[in-house]
């Protein structure tokens, strides 16, 4: 057993953390996250140049990473900086393009922004019950349906869409210029959009795509877990600092035992959240991948809510304000549970294995 980060990943983390702290500080983030296009094309190009996208793909495909721990290294750093760039859809698109044996050069260079459109209003999580349909007309695939809250869709050039295609689910590539995307900002920063498919022409990338889609969703959920760990660490450290400096009744509020015990419990839960994310990362590519990711996303879901609420509560009023960065971390933390399956959804995936017991 070995719990040290490899030299390569340490370098990756250092590079990304340094870039973000020097170029994506709080002012920049605040000015970027809540106004169209809800990310910074300039910073996006920087990240590509730094080779961050390459860390999301295996060497055989032109990258230099692509394993679970590469993904967690990148997303933990993004979470720490509360970075609103649409890196998550890029990761998920990379998984789908690789499964399709399609080129990911445009993705790696940062020239092509992708969104991945799976969830729908009545089937928000997972791949069961999707209603969007694909049909062929004169050799062309046409898509019809609505994909809801597609992260990064407001800024994407290409959208990869899961749709029912006869026998099963297929993955289709749609050009953003061919489809109506109603974009909007998100309450925790960053952007998304409704993708309104109305006989939209599309290219079939993957037929019989259940496994490929599940894999993309697994990697996406793992990335969210890692992002959450970065967010959790920041919230905890900020709260700890605040408790040490803020005075009340003539003493630092961190001297109150009730808060001390809650902080210890919080730290314990955050370490558990880190551990389960490590576990899931280590199981990517094994037959335990999906269940381990569901375990992680469930525990992360419990921990982000607890930590966000406790961090705000222990701060008091100041954390209720837009001006104070912690409030945005708290929003991001809570809203991570609304992406790619919430606490309950993933608990049900974990429970499913018992049925066979």
């Amino acid at each position, binding site marked *: 057993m070995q719990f040290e980060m490899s030299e390569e990943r340490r370098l990756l983390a250092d590079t990304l953390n340094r870039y973000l702290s020097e170029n994506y500080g709080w002012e920049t983030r605040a000015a970027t996250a809540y106004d169209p296009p809800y990310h910074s094309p300039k910073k996006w190009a920087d990240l590509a140049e730094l080779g961050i996208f390459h860390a999301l793909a295996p060497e055989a495909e032109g990258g230099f990473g692509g394993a679970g721990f590469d993904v967690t290294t990148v997303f933990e750093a993004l979470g720490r900086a509360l970075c609103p760039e649409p890196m998550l859809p890029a990761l998920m698109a990379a998984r789908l393009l690789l499964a399709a044996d399609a080129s990911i050069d445009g993705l790696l260079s940062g020239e092509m922004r992708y969104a991945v459109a799976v969830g729908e209003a009545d089937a*928000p999580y997972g791949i069961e019950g999707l209603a969007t349909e694909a049909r062929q007309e004169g050799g062309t695939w046409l898509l019809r349906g609505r994909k809801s*809250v597609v992260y990064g869709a407001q800024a994407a050039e290409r959208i990869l869409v899961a749709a029912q295609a006869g026998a099963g689910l297929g993955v289709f590539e749609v050009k953003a210029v061919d489809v109506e995307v109603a974009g*909007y900002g998100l309450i925790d920063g960053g952007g998304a959009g409704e993708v309104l498919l109305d006989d939209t022409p599309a290219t079939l990338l993957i037929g019989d795509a259940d496994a490929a889609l599940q894999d993309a969703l697994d990697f996406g959920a793992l990335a969210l877990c890692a992002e959450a760990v970065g967010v959790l660490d920041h919230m905890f450290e900020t709260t700890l600092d605040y408790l040490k400096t803020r*005075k009340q009744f003539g003493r630092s509020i961190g001297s109150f035992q009730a808060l001390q015990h809650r902080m210890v419990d919080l730290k314990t839960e955050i370490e558990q959240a880190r551990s389960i994310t490590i576990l899931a990362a280590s199981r990517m590519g094994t037959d335990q991948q999906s269940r381990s990711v569901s375990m992680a996303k469930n525990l992360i879901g419990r921990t982000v809510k607890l930590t966000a609420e406790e961090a705000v509560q222990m701060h008091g009023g100041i954390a*209720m304000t*837009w001006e104070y960065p912690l409030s945005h971390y708290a929003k991001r933390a809570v809203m991570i549970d609304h992406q790619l399956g919430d606490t*309950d959804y993933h*608990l049900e995936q974990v429970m499913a294995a018992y049925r066979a017991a």
Partner: protein
Amino acid sequence: MDLNFTPEEATFRDEVRAFLKAELPGELSDKVLSGHTLSKEDMERWHAILNGRGWLASTWPTEFGGTGWSPVEKHIFEEECCLAGAPRIVPFGLHMLGPVLIRFGSKAQKAHYLPRILDGSDWWCQGYSEPGAGSDLASLRTSAVRDGDHYVINGQKTWTTLGQHANRIFCLVRTSKEGKPQEGISFLLVDLDTPGIEMRPIRLLEGGYEVNEVFFTDVRVPVENLVGEENLGWTIAKFLLTHERTNIAGVGFSVQAFEQLKALATQQRRNGKRLIDNPLFAARLSEVEIDLEAMKITNLRMLADAQKNGRPGPESSMLKIKGTTIRQALNDLARRALGPAAAPFPSEALEGNLAIAPAGHTRNAARYFNNRKLSIFGGSNEIQRNILSKTMLEL
């Protein structure tokens, strides 16, 4: 033991219901139920309607225009208003300053200010908290120095709710630095038009604007605006904090929120099934339903005590803690129930054609975040626990 309303109470409830049905404008209740921000005009409109019916001053004696309701009647009125989606009565003039003036104010102050509260001429806001004095209110530093017939105020207040609509503010200020921190505090009435006052908005985490900072620079206030005696303002502050706070448990809000949530969960689909038929979600829903059913009775039991003893005991702090916990749990579930549709930043643009979330639920996440304040403001739940530990448990 009889949990049923007396015939008189039942009649009163029917009267309230009929009134709400007839007089509460649908535009207002729609806004309230969907978590939209009410405009100043919206709030004034409802204030005037209630004043017209004589149902505004539920915390005042009848001689000053109060309703003369028993605690149970007050409870009935508040619960029915919540259920109907009536706007919340802005409490600063009516339920906070009013009782203070009636108890501590001069004849002239009563005669001048009380009618203006009722008819809406004055909109009061509160100048209590300061950046360094929230839960520890007695450490406040905004000073008022006597200069002839005036006090001269310098300092800063914060968390002044709806100050942007107000024309007046009542303040706790430091008039002496001698003795214990509690001993040099006075209670002043200030006209917001006085030169030297600046009100700055505080944007809240979810993007809304309901609280303010207020800066005082050499603000001259006539001495007749002092309420009670100089340096004895702490008595008034305590009176306000321990005075019968109406609807402290927020049961009505929670009942209304629960009904909305249940309806939402029957509408929402998760991969072909109704969310309400999902056992994990249904379990969460039923646990909070049970907590709320218990809270209704706890609230009534404490009301009955208050009716008997003239004022609520320290136990009412338990209502604050549990009541806010339940409301926050309901907000949490209303956010969860939306899934990804909770994520869009609330904006008018999103509420029309796009209909990402069901009508009336586009602000569920915003409301969840905003209502984290419930356990912080008005004496944080930690402060309530400290109080209860001392007064109720004698630890």
